[in-house]
């Protein structure tokens, strides 16, 4: 088990290194960084001065090593637009994105599992067909369109929910949360649905397919032959066996949820990292873009690792096979 985690951790470091190279390369391909810092009429000598002070005249590997070592310490340089450390900017925006992603994921899991179980058990019922249709819509409509439709319905026509922003937030240490105020919670509803809808339909489809699959297995037949109640069979035996794929999807998708929050945050003007990234792209603010890339990669990698560990909690077979690799 421990060896397995170590092995996975090394793979994770490999992935992060690769992303590090890409984000480092961004600086070099996006033109001369010195140009971003000095003004147009700065004399060449002064430019050289800046270049040397930033270490940009060192060999590329040395620069990369320096870049990585500061990235490990959480330093990603200074934003060209804001003239503030990128790490501060990201830290300030992170709670908004994480809270949004969390709510979207909870929404996706809650409704996805419920609807999936229902349509797996009663696949010919009217409601199951409604769910199938909804899931088709959820998968085929682009996120921004769903967001705009929701805003149109609930903000413009009904006036129930705010169309943009986070509402009021409460500061706890460096974290700002929208969970503690009514306006903050209300502001979370539509962005969470928008962001989580795709995942919800995905989870629903997977749970449904897995339920149908599991209900055909021998151990379910045997459980019925043992006279267990329908409830114990469906929710004790069948549902638990659908959890492994659900964990996979939820886990792997959580990274995408954070990554795709860019679109939702733009639609709802949600003050998170995604919105920061979009602004950075518009202003060619390479340090922010590079740092965001590294951060998203880190989140992906950490989640993958967590998912691998979770599997072994759910499925005892993996525990032994990992302990004693064949």
């Amino acid at each position, binding site marked *: 088990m421990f060896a397995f985690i170590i092995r996975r951790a090394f793979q994770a470091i490999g992935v992060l290194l690769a992303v590090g190279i890409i984000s480092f390369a961004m600086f070099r391909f996006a033109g001369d960084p010195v140009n971003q810092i000095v003004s147009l009429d700065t004399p060449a000598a002064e430019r050289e001065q800046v270049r040397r002070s930033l270490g940009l005249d060192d060999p590329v590997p040395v620069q990369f090593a320096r870049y990585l070592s500061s990235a490990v310490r959480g330093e990603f340089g200074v934003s060209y637009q804001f003239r503030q450390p990128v790490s501060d900017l990201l830290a300030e925006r992170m709670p908004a994105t994480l809270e949004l992603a969390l709510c979207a994921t909870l929404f996706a899991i809650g409704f996805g599992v419920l609807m999936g179980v229902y349509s797996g058990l009663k696949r010919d019922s009217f409601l199951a067909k409604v769910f199938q249709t909804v899931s088709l819509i959820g998968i085929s409509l682009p996120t921004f369109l769903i967001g705009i439709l929701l805003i149109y319905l609930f903000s413009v026509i009904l006036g129930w929910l705010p169309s943009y922003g986070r509402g009021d937030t409460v500061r706890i240490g460096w974290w700002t949360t929208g969970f503690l105020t009514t306006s903050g919670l209300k502001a979370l509803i539509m962005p969470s649905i928008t962001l989580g809808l795709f995942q919800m339909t995905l989870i629903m489809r997977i749970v449904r397919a897995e339920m149908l699959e599991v209900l055909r297995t*021998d151990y379910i037949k*045997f459980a019925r*032959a043992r*006279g267990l109640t329908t409830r*114990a069979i469906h929710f*004790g035996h069948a549902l638990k*066996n659908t959890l492994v794929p659900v964990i996979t999807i939820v886990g792997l998708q959580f990274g995408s949820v954070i990554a795709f929050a860019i679109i939702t945050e733009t639609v709802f003007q949600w003050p998170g990292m995604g919105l920061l990234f979009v602004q950075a792209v518009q202003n060619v603010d390479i340090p922010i873009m590079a740092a965001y890339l590294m951060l998203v990669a880190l989140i992906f990698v950490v989640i993958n690792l967590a998912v691998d560990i979770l599997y072994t909690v759910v*499925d005892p077979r993996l525990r*032994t096979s990992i302990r004693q690799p064949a």
Partner: protein
Amino acid sequence: MTQPVLSVRDLRVEFVTRRGILKAIDGISFDIGKGEVLGVVGESGAGKSVTGSAVIGLIDPPGRIAGGEILLSGMRIDNLPPEEMRRVRGKRIGMIFQDPLTSLNPLYRVSEQLVETIRTHTNLSASAARKRAIDLLAEVGIPAPERRIDSYPHEFSGGMRQRVVIALALCAEPELIIADEPTTALDVSVQAQIIALLKKLGREHGTAIMLVTHDMGVIAETADRVAVMYAGRIAEIGPVRDVVQNPLHPYAKGLMGAIPSLESDTDRLVQIPGSMPRLSAIPPGCPFNPRCPYVFDRCRVERPEPIQHSEHRVACHLYDQSSVRSEAVA
């Protein structure tokens, strides 16, 4: 004669498919008495498993019981409401399937699966149920049951897992056990042990056993009576010694002439040329007529009904006096 534990009367099971109604079981009757082992043999697709599923009430749509009666110790069970039938399953009828590797839920400990079954059918407390579970494991021959009970299914070998499955089927001391090819998926070396265990348990508890198997050797050793199935019907049924040594039905003759060796793991134990017709293409008259070496005109038009012939019951026109007469006349 005392009342049989299981009595199946003219049972019919159909599957409604797009290509029409398939008669998987077409009018079979048999009894199993207390402590008796009925062996059921026949080629793959003969309807052995469907018969077992019908008895335990697990025929799912598109299948349905289309006729006949199933009586358990005199009580009709084929028309029970689902919830009452559920209470019969596991409590009064235990079932053992072919593959112990897939019969157990991989995500639950053996103890959890045993305790849940015991507590479904009795009102034992959790700790009493656990104690009973340990006793059951000991009874089916699992060494060090107090320690092994908390293992997961994958931590047992195939033979041990089938013992766990048997323990699960025994949880509520059922009157009847249906064992559907309980050793087919197992190593040859453990097959005999499992069969011996089943036989011993049946004897000790007076359980009636319906033992479906491909292995004529097992039948000869274990069963009291044997039913030979073909295309959803019972071709011949009778005391095991008679049927094995002196089969009457031409299909049974073919089967007994070809008792397979232990190494052959094929589904077909028959060396009779041809194969069993598909359900959608069962010929009129005797379903065996295209393959029967003794076929005569009547076989192609009239379905043979089971006829008592000494201790056997055989569905073949050869043993019908009227047909002998008609042949004599012809």
